[in-house]
């Protein structure tokens, strides 16, 4: 499905009535089956953008549309959260099942579907464990399985691997690409890691410091399936440098002001 | 004759009469009436409903949850009637009476030994009772008035429960207490208290009565039938435990049975029960004038806003009719 973000703005208002502009006039498109990374410094409004796309936050101005074919009962979006956001009182199986329950799927259907995504995310043997019994990497697999299980038109991922250690992250990124090749949904992937964004995405949307505006959209001209070897290719290095150029001054200024 | 009478009231025979009472010795006539089948003789099937305090009995009666109540008359009862909830005082259920130890005035042993011997000596003393507005409060006031004092001349200390009151006496927190048996006996036997007087010797009065709810009183036949059983039980009770000869108690033939029945219902030890069977009229007749005096006293002391005309609260016709109808053995 195609996602159209149409001149979206978001201003937070706190209890005392003070206003804080988080996003200003964001316009972007995600084509069907496209992998778009959203990159920007801390606090620029990435999570806010994803929240609005997921219908978890009201926009102040503008709108988000979804366009295209949709199957019966298929949800528009499903989200993978940075902090995993698994339900501690549910086993792995029941966490993965959650979205299906809410969609009202029949028990057998749920069971079958859960089994498929547990297998796809390499969680076999952990079905009856609780989240606190799993390592970070395993937890985020549960988060991904939960999101994929509802078969969303668009998968929203908010820094899904940033709480993982470097080795696990590298391996999980590869796996996610593998899963995506099979599942073929559109993905909006929020990150602040440039390498990660370039390695995974078809296009990288670079946001400015708060209030977030679109600085640039960088297309990544690398063949798929991607592999570690491509990180040395000029297209890769070029994209990376171009993005770092856009970001660097922003990040330094932010740090100086104590925001990062 | 009893069988005949019972046969005349088959219409009501099935319906139970709910009687609210305390599980105390003073309810002995009711226990006897139930246990010996005196009520049944008159086609009444009483159902005893036990309470732990007098107030809920009056409430339950006023709301029609009970047909009959049998407990002490307190300011609360009068105020309920004053508040517009009609009920009728119909019969005697216990009196403070000379020669029948019930409520005792107990003073600290030390004070007694130090020469406190008369009611007049209580002036300025702290006197423990259960609650303000209780029968004990009334009683204390009247006893004091006998020697020209008033409640204002002593410090009345409300301690709510009887164990608390006796504890306060023992701990010398109060100088005297006014409590019913077995508490005075216990205080004396433990040595920290001395029974100064039995209050009934100083001021006889109608301490407890039987009341009818408005609804039950309106069912004249049943109300009278109930009263017949009650009168019969009262006589039995009187003859068994209240008869005195030359100022001494003269236990009747059924004394032990009454003790046994009372013990069964109150679950108290027989020794304790023997300490105090309250006096009650042999035919259950009320001291009507005393009711009026009580209301006047409560009103004077600020516990009632005004008195109730006697005919608005007392109805002796049931007990009179019953006393005539029940033949002597």
């Amino acid at each position, binding site marked *: 499905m195609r996602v159209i973000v149409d001149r979206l703005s978001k201003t937070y208002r706190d*209890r005392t009535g003070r206003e804080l502009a988080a996003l200003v006039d964001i316009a972007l498109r995600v084509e069907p089956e496209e992998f778009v990374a959203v990159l920007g410094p801390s606090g620029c409004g990435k999570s806010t953008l994803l929240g*609005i*796309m*997921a*219908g*978890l*936050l*009201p*926009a102040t101005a503008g*709108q*988000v*549309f*979804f*366009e*295209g*074919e*949709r*199957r*019966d009962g298929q949800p*528009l979006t499903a989200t993978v959260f940075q902090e995993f956001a698994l339900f501690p009182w549910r086993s792995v199986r029941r966490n993965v099942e959650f979205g299906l329950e809410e969609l009202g799927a029949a028990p057998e259907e749920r069971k079958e579907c859960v089994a498929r995504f547990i297998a796809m995310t390499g969680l076999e043997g952990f079905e009856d464990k609780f989240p606190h019994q799993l390592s970070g990497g395993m937890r985020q697999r549960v988060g991904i399985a939960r999101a994929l299980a509802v078969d969303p038109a668009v998968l929203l991922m908010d820094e899904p691997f940033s709480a993982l250690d470097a080795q696990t992250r590298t391996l999980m990124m590869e796996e996610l690409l593998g899963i995506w090749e099979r599942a073929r949904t559109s993905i909006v992937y929020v990150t602040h890691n440039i390498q990660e964004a370039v390695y995974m995405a078809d296009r990288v949307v670079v946001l400015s410091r708060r209030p977030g505006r679109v600085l640039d959209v960088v297309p990544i001209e690398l063949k798929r399936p991607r592999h570690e070897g491509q990180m040395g290719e000029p297209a890769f290095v070029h994209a990376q440098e171009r993005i770092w150029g856009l970001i660097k001054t922003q990040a330094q200024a932010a740090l100086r002001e104590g925001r990062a | 004759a009893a069988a005949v009478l019972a046969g005349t009231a088959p219409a009501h025979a099935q319906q139970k009469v709910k009687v609210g009472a305390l599980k105390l010795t003073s309810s002995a006539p009711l226990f006897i009436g139930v246990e010996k089948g005196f009520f049944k003789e008159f086609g009444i099937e009483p159902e005893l409903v036990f309470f732990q305090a007098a*107030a809920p009995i*009056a*409430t339950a009666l*006023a*709301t029609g949850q009970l047909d009959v109540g049998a407990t002490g008359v*307190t*300011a*609360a*009862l009068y*105020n*309920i009637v004053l*508040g*517009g*909830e009609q009920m009728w005082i119909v019969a005697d259920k216990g009196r403070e009476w000379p020669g029948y130890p019930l409520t005792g005035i107990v003073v600290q042993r030390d004070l007694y030994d130090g020469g406190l011997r008369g009611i007049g000596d209580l002036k300025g003393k702290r006197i*423990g009772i259960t*609650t*303000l*507005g*209780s029968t004990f409060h009334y009683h204390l006031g009247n006893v004091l008035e006998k020697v020209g004092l008033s409640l204002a001349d002593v410090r009345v*200390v*409300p*301690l*709510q*429960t009887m*164990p*608390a009151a*006796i*504890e*306060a006496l*023992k*701990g010398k*927190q*109060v100088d005297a207490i006014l409590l019913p048996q077995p508490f005075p006996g216990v205080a004396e036997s433990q040595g920290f208290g001395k029974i100064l007087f039995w209050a009934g010797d100083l001021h006889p009065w109608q301490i407890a009565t039987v009341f009818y709810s408005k609804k039950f009183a309106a069912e004249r036949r049943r109300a009278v039938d109930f009263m017949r059983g009650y009168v019969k039980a009262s006589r039995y009770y009187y003859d068994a435990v209240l008869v005195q000869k030359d100022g001494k108690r003269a236990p009747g033939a059924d004394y032990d049975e009454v003790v046994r029945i009372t013990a069964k219902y109150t679950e108290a030890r027989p020794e304790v029960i023997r300490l105090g069977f309250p006096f009650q009229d042999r035919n259950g007749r009320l001291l009507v004038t005393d009711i009026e005096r009580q209301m006047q006293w409560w009103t004077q002391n600020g*516990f*009632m806003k005004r008195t109730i005309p006697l005919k608005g609260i007392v109805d002796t016709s049931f007990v009179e009719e019953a006393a005539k109808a029940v033949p002597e053995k």
Partner: protein
Amino acid sequence: MSGSSRVAVQDRAAFLRRPEHRLLRVAALAGLVVVWEALTRVGWIPALFLPSPVGVLTELGEMAASGQLFVHLGASLRRLLLGFAAGGGAGVAVGVMTGFFSRADAVGQPLIAATFPIPKIALLPLLILWLGIGEPSKVAVIALGVFFPMAINTYAGVREADPLLVRAAVAFGAGRWSVIRKVIVPSALPMIFAGLKLGAGTALLLLVAAEMIAADSGIGFLVLHAGNIMDTTKLMVGIVVLSLLGLLSHWALACCERLAVPWRHT
């Protein structure tokens, strides 16, 4: 709804937002009074059992005018404050100790569970024996009542303290008392405040029991005495005053909480 189409995203989390509804807050209480008045008007409940608000207000006014009300109020407030302070303090202390020290836990928890259900009224004779019939025994009844909710809630709060913060404190050289004072107690504050709210209610509730002991003034005495002589209007005045005190203490505690736990309310 299969097929091609254009769908705008809906805000699905709208039901999570919590506006303040200040007006409703007042309306609720006003509503209570209206329902009460209606009940008495319709006559379902005899005036004896539930006097009308108007009657109660009149009586309240009279009692205030005669100064009687303030005598009662003053006497009760003293007892409440002392009892609340003593019971609350002891409850927090015991809750912290049993929550923190496993030995204290082993000793304290069974004792608390065993002594909590002992009816306070059954303890009155012992209290009179040990503390007399003056103020101490009255304060003790209230303190006892406040103690249990405070101890139980504080315990739960302590057991929930973040172990990471405890370890951090120890890493910086904190001993057990420092840990308790600087980590455990602040962590448990939200639960302690829930306990305080419960305790305040319980204290008011127990005022009646406390003033069973040889009191001749106080709101509890008023309620008790009016109940004993079935003067239901006065009884209602006492209950209304207790309710108002309950509201007041709830509100005061909510304010205190906002001040004492600033890191959770922004």
